[in-house]
């Protein structure tokens, strides 16, 4: 036993295998690192992905607690319109009503004199919420649908995936616009709920395909056979044994779904079908800003740039996660 030393390969082909184990200090025994720890380490090596992660966390935290701080410090909220008529105008960033320097409105105000920073942060809350909730909806539908189709296989699978193919080629954005325009809700919250339904119901298709593909390749493995042999029910096999094993690609795709849903939301809000005033999202703020871009460019630039930065970071994070969780793809 004394001679059995851990073999550390120096050949580049074994580099990955080597990284997967580490030596416990002094004992000479090797322990494997889990997939997740390994992926996390690879992610941290990717500078752009780390940058993305930091920006996403910062923007989320700031939009969550920022409005509270602003309210406590200055009393401004996203829908606070000043009583003084003189103040109901768009003021440039960091400028007071008399044109001198002031910290009161770091991003200026909009046409009704509302604090733009508070509105951009509210926009962040709503845009992120739309992105996350719609992605959750797409996760729930997509995973269940894909896993069931993949596991059951045969004619049912064929039928279910044909349906996905058909839905895939629909010009869904057109239908979403018609839906939102026709069922336009009287209340801003109602319209927001409608938006969740519309976005969630169209973004699950790719997720279903990915999960189905994973399940197809997993379902013939021994652990499924073992589960079946011990009498585990089909539902339990699908959701307790197969679904957890598809999480890698699902997480990657979910991270990339969030920015694309946010972009669609912004697009719909920009056209006036999405988030309704007094609520605001980055898309609706940009739509307001574009009206007076020549005179008050900050009304477009602040929400626009914040949104672009967030999407940029989310995309980099998603790409980094994909590289980290799937080393195979990094080689390509």
């Amino acid at each position, binding site marked *: 036993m004394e001679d059995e030393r851990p073999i550390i390969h120096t050949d580049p082909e074994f580099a990955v295998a080597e990284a997967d184990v580490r030596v416990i200090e002094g004992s000479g025994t090797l322990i494997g690192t889990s997939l997740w720890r390994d992926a996390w380490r690879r992610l941290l090596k990717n500078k752009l992905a780390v940058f993305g992660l930091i920006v996403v966390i910062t923007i989320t935290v700031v939009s969550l607690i920022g409005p509270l701080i602003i309210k406590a410090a200055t009393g401004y909220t996203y829908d606070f319109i000043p009583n003084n008529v003189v103040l109901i105008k768009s003021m440039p960033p960091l400028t007071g009503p008399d044109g001198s320097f002031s910290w009161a409105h770091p991003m200026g105000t909009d046409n009704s004199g509302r604090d733009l920073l508070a509105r951009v942060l509210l926009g962040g809350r709503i845009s992120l919420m739309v992105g996350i909730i719609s992605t959750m909806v797409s996760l729930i539908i997509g995973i269940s649908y894909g896993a069931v189709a993949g596991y059951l296989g045969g004619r049912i699978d064929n039928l279910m995936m044909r349906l996905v193919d058909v839905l895939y080629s629909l010009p869904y954005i057109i239908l979403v616009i*018609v839906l939102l325009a026709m069922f336009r809700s009287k209340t801003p919250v109602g319209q927001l709920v409608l938006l969740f339904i519309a976005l969630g119901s169209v973004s699950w298709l790719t997720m279903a395909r990915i999960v189905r593909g994973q399940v197809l390749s997993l379902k013939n493995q021994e652990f499924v056979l073992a589960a079946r042999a011990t009498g585990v029910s089909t539902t339990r096999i699908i959701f307790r044994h197969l679904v957890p094993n598809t999480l890698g690609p699902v997480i990657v795709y979910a991270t990339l779904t969030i920015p694309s849903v946010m972009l669609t939301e912004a697009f719909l809000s920009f056209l006036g079908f999405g988030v309704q005033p007094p609520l605001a999202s980055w898309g609706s703020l940009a739509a307001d800003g574009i009206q007076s871009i020549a005179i008050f460019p900050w009304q477009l630039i602040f929400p626009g740039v914040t949104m672009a930065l967030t999407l940029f970071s989310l995309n980099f994070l998603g790409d980094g996660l994909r590289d980290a969780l799937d080393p195979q793809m990094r080689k390509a």
Partner: protein
Amino acid sequence: MLRFTIRRLLVTIPMILVVITLTWGLIRLAPGNFYSGEKKIPKAVEKNIREKYGLNKPWYVQYGRTMGHIVRLDFGDSLKYQGQSVNTIIARSLPVSATVGILAYLLALIVGITVGSIAALKQNSRWDYTSMALAMLGISIPNFVLGPLLVLLFSLALYWLPPSRWSGFPSRSVVLPVLTLSAIYMAYIARLTRAGMLEVLRSDYIRTARAKGLRERDVVIRHALRGGIMPVVSFTGPALAFLLTGTVVVERIFALPGLGNYFIQASLNRDEPLILGIVAFIAMTLLIMNLLVDIAYAFLDPRIRY
């Protein structure tokens, strides 16, 4: 091949009908209609209107009549734009959308494939990182932010180009809409080309081509590119759908009298014939283009058999 085409056509036609039916259903299921505006119409007038447009008949009769007209490509008259048939409106606005869309896609193809190939050839170089970061930026900047920023720069600061309005195809009014629409496709195509090229450049036939002493230029242009742009070809289908949403925004920003702008107006006005006409037209174009892309794919890649 022929069998595949016929089979696909047989699926495509019902799909177009499904899209139209869904749209019709959405319009009808929603509360209110074109006439339920702020202004109250006298009962008698409303009754006459309902009779004229057949709104007093049961829903299946109305549905049958609408579909009957649509199948014959007769979409009727717009409710909002009095005296104009939906067909004239489409015929008038389509060239605008098509010009912007096609020019944007061509520009994206040229720039995207060039940038993507160079990035793949010089993998991990500074050029590679810079162009891919720019591409990611292109994907992340919404076109309704990019468009106004370009206007701010080129029209309001430099006075080079008109900020909006349409003055026909070969004119300076085309430049900004095309650039705005093109940015995201450029970015996507550059990324796809890079990924495709990286894979192809490692393949055996490229090694063979190099081994037999071909010039690097020939290896890249004649051998590698052909395989490398396959992902770009398959992106054409989704790109068309994207192009659609893109043109809607760009037409709004630059006030172009295109299809997308009319569609948004029609949706806001609940102008049923116009909505149905444009949806039917878009669905047809999109699905037929998708079919063509699939056929083109089979021609380009001999390994694909349908």
